[in-house]
């Protein structure tokens, strides 16, 4: 006969954790929206790999049966939905959990002095995902519930190894990087501007809440105003970028071909259009 001896009570730690995630906001008509999404994924394959994605259905307001179909549809594109936002909905156990109590990320104090690089995943919204632009805000999740799913998202995120985003430790202001940014590095700065004195290699990424200034050649991806700052700009001495984006509106290397390649440029939002102009 075996009896389970009373275990030495080891307390289980429940910790709250807030982090930034992508939000997809589908809109009717769905076919068109999916087409736009496919186009964007085609331009940036693997962009969603391992990243937690929220599904904001407050615009679409679908029936529960449609939600399952939509989640499956996104699943075929390798996008893993870990929570759904839909006011007043009740979802079945087979669907990702409903996100409650989420706050929109702001620059003030929400991500204070984050030490662990594994926590914050700054998001870059884009016009294919969020045609309204304004919906492309980072959402912070106060992770009390759904620990399983969050763990899953984190596991996917943490296997990136040294290419883990380097979240700046400064509480405010400008991040100045004096060294070149190497291929595979990602700089996330949710507090303000990023100034890079060297070059930004292809295969690297800068995400900033404010503007991005690159005094060398910009060959990687740069996302300014990632938390919803429409007046953010990207400046560089030589534009060889793979992608430029401001507040989710983006332009890829192909679209820049010829017009602004190899030149000193600035990228900024003009209404709902991202403009890339040469600096003279």
């Amino acid at each position, binding site marked *: 006969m075996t009896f389970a001896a009373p275990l030495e009570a080891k307390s289980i730690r429940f910790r709250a954790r807030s982090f930034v995630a992508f939000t997809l906001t589908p809109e009717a008509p769905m076919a068109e929206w999916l087409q736009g999404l496919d186009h964007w994924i085609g331009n940036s394959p693997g962009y969603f790999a391992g990243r937690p994605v929220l599904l904001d259905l407050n615009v679409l307001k679908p029936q529960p049966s449609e939600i399952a179909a939509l989640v499956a549809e996104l699943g075929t594109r390798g996008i893993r939905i870990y929570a759904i936002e839909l006011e007043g909905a009740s979802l079945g156990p087979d669907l990702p959990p409903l996100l409650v109590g989420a706050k929109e990320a702001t620059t003030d104090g929400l991500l204070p002095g984050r030490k662990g690089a594994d926590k914050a995943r700054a998001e870059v919204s884009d016009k294919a995902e969020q045609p309204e632009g304004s919906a492309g805000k980072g959402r912070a999740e106060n992770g009390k519930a759904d620990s399983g799913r969050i763990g899953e998202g984190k596991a996917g995120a943490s296997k990136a190894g*040294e290419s883990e985003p380097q979240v700046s430790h400064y509480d405010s202001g400008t991040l100045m990087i004096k060294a070149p940014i*190497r*291929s595979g590095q990602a700089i996330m700065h949710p507090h303000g501007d990023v100034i890079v004195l*060297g*070059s930004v*290699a292809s295969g690297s990424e800068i995400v900033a809440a404010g503007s991005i200034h690159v005094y*060398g050649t910009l060959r990687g991806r740069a996302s300014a105003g990632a938390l919803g700052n429409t007046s953010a700009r990207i400046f560089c001495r030589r534009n060889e970028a793979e992608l430029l984006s401001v507040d989710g509106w983006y332009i890829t290397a192909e679209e820049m071909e010829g017009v602004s390649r190899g030149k000193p440029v600035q990228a900024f939002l003009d209404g709902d259009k991202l403009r890339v102009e040469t600096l003279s």
Partner: protein
Amino acid sequence: MGKVVVVTSGKGGVGKTTSTAALGAAVAKTGKKVALVDFDVGLRNLDLIMGAERRVVFDLVNVIQGTAKLSQALIRDKRVETLFLLPASQTRDKDALTEEGVGEVIDKLRSVFDYVFCDSPAGIERGAQLAMRFADEAVIVTNPEVSSVRDSDRIIGLLDARTMRAEQGEQIAKHVLVTRYDAARAARGEMLSIDDVLEILSVPLLGIIPESQDVLRASNLGAPVTLSEPLNTAAKAYLDAARRLEGEDLPVVVPFERKGFLDRLLGRRAA
């Protein structure tokens, strides 16, 4: 205390092992005590290029696991008195290396030798990270082609993040060695120019090694080119690179294609 130099690259096949042997031999010829350590556990190439494959009894893994003493595993080169080789094991895999073990071996080598060259495996995995872990300086070997340069950029990022020096807030000195440079193809624009490579990597240039059949021949004969054919242009380039590594301020000359010029002359004569 000796200097630990890791010879590394992101991409394979760019000439790390050849460069390790050639640079090591060149430095050793000046009378400095040099150890070459092969970190490519499971593949074992450096001993072949050094012509010592039949003298390997114990290897790096034996030393790390304590089954052999460092002095037993070190192979003295037959041509240069001050050149030693610590071979890699072909029968083990890279998981046999531990960070503490590698650290101890490197510390011992550092106290005995003036220079310790670590021949890194390609890639960014554990083996490569262990090879660079305790280095003071790095030679990043790259070919003038986009994929090689891109991977080198990645490796430089690792050197700045994952080495002991970097973690202690110090800088690790970095040098780019451009190998297999083909002047004719560069002139035709089929290769990246040296300026492009340096602009992308923004790391000082250690040397440019021209593509040469002699390097391959020397490697296959088991002799670093700097020992077997020191008058060869590639060997000269390696000898100059070694002098720069020792701190000498030599200008780097970009090799240009003499053949084309001669060919043209001969061609005219024939006409």
